[in-house]
């Protein structure tokens, strides 16, 4: 599957691949990542879950070149982040957890332009790409706003616009909604949903309800990849959930406890399924 984007990319090769990836922080007793192997195909939406300290953040930083692996192979859009970090960062954008500390400039549009400035993009081209990115996240009119006047959701959307302006093929989301309130989460998740068709996405999160539509879910615990399965399989495996301290969202949890499949995501779907089972029809309203 072809992806629009900068750089020369051939359709069919992997967006991200890891082979026996291992890393330990200096002075730590236990390995942060231990022989992790997985692939992200172009256009896939893959979730990454697991307890804190299990290796999720380490993986993110190994993929974008902030850390260098002790052993194993990493390729992002056919480049090695350890030896060509600048190249990789043209193809890979990371949305971090803290909405505040990712914004570097005193105005929204300047911040969105930051990545383009780093790439040496000419000014005229920058203006168009910045305007487009701001539109893509629904923040038209916010160009001259100062970051400290924005809500959490707005800040994350500015950060997202900054990533999109560079037009990477791959996006990594590192717990992007965990510090946001309900409204902020909705804002950000809406925009991310709209990007699914165009980008390859790796989404690290604690909220399993964000991954119900994912293609696959990777479970990292103690530095090891303990599962690489579809959401359906992960959600319906109580031992897997328990061992990795994963908590189901309310609706799938109710569904499973009632003996219904775990792929029911919304209250409406669950109500429908219950009524079907008990032999009557849903009345709307």
């Amino acid at each position, binding site marked *: 599957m072809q992806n629009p984007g900068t750089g020369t990319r051939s359709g069919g090769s992997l967006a991200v691949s890891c082979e026996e990836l291992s890393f330990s922080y200096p002075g730590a007793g236990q390995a942060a990542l231990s022989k992790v192997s997985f692939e992200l195909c172009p256009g896939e939406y893959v979730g990454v879950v697991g307890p804190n300290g299990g290796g999720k953040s380490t993986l993110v930083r190994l993929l974008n070149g902030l850390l260098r692996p002790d052993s194993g192979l990493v390729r992002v859009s056919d480049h090695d982040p350890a030896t060509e970090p600048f190249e990789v960062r043209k193809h890979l954008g990371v949305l971090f957890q803290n909405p505040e500390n990712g914004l*570097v400039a005193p105005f929204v549009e300047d911040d969105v332009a*930051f990545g383009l400035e*780093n790439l040496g993009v000419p000014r005229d081209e920058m203006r168009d790409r910045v305007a487009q990115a701001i539109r893509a996240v629904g923040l038209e009119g916010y160009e001259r706003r100062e970051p400290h006047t924005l809500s959490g959701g707005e800040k994350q959307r500015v950060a997202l616009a900054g990533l999109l302006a560079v037009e990477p093929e791959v996006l990594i989301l590192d717990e992007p909604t965990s510090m946001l309130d309900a409204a902020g989460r909705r804002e950000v998740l809406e925009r991310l949903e709209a990007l699914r068709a165009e980008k390859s996405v790796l989404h690290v999160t604690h909220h399993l309800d964000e991954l119900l539509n994912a293609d696959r879910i990777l479970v990292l615990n103690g530095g090891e990849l303990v599962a690489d399965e579809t959401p359906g399989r992960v959600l319906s495996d109580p031992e897997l959930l328990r061992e990795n301290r994963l908590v189901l969202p309310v609706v799938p949890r109710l569904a499973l406890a009632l003996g219904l499949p775990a792929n029911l995501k919304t209250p409406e779907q669950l109500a429908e399924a219950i009524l079907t089972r008990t032999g009557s029809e849903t009345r709307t309203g």
Partner: protein
Amino acid sequence: MTSLGQFYPVASPVHGLDPRAKIVATAVLVAGLFLVDSTVGLLFVAVTLMILVALSRIPIRNFLRLLRPVLFIVALTVAFQVFFSREGAIVIEWGFLEVHTGGLWLALFLALRILLLVSAAGLLTATTAPVALADGIEDLLSPLKRVGFPAHEVAMMMTIALRFIPTLGEEAEKIKGAQAARGADFSEGGPLRRARSLVPVLVPLTVGAFRRADELAEAMESRGYRGGEGRTRYRELRFRRKDALALSVTVFILLVGVLL
């Protein structure tokens, strides 16, 4: 940034000037003021400065506030010259205090010069947004890159500082509130006690700032930042005819002042 206090955002011919022109003009004016050696010359400069302040549409009240920090020094200088100078004829005599005409003129001269220096700098910061100032400084310093001066890094630091000052301010308020909720009192006791009571605010604020810096650095690096090499700039500074005009007018005023 509006919380920085000095910048007064309004549309005016002075506000619209290129920051580099304004910075250079201010520098020239400040240096040049020391070359003016007559009170009349200073008065001329003062009148032109007042015209500039009027042009800049800054309310007089706001502008005078900028002068407040130096009023004490000015008063001291004036008092010293008025009461202790023995030049010229005696105007008033009161016990052992004598006021001479020379003292009065000197007091006026020195007071004017101090006020003009501060006004020039104040006019610059009041009519130039902090970000524009940072851009202007970066541009003016960039030729120094050739001799190894980290002009880009300095500019980046200024931009980041401007971005985070309001954020850190809010953080400080929040931490103060949290400590107050735990029974901290910042208003009791003498200066030493009060300084010590700020430890529960300054320590977490500082540690938090370091953590922020860490996360920010990661985010910047992730977005391809690798110093100033190969970087283009989104914001534009355009030097126009009116900026050249402003510069020449400044030099001209100074010349007149020196000659007077």
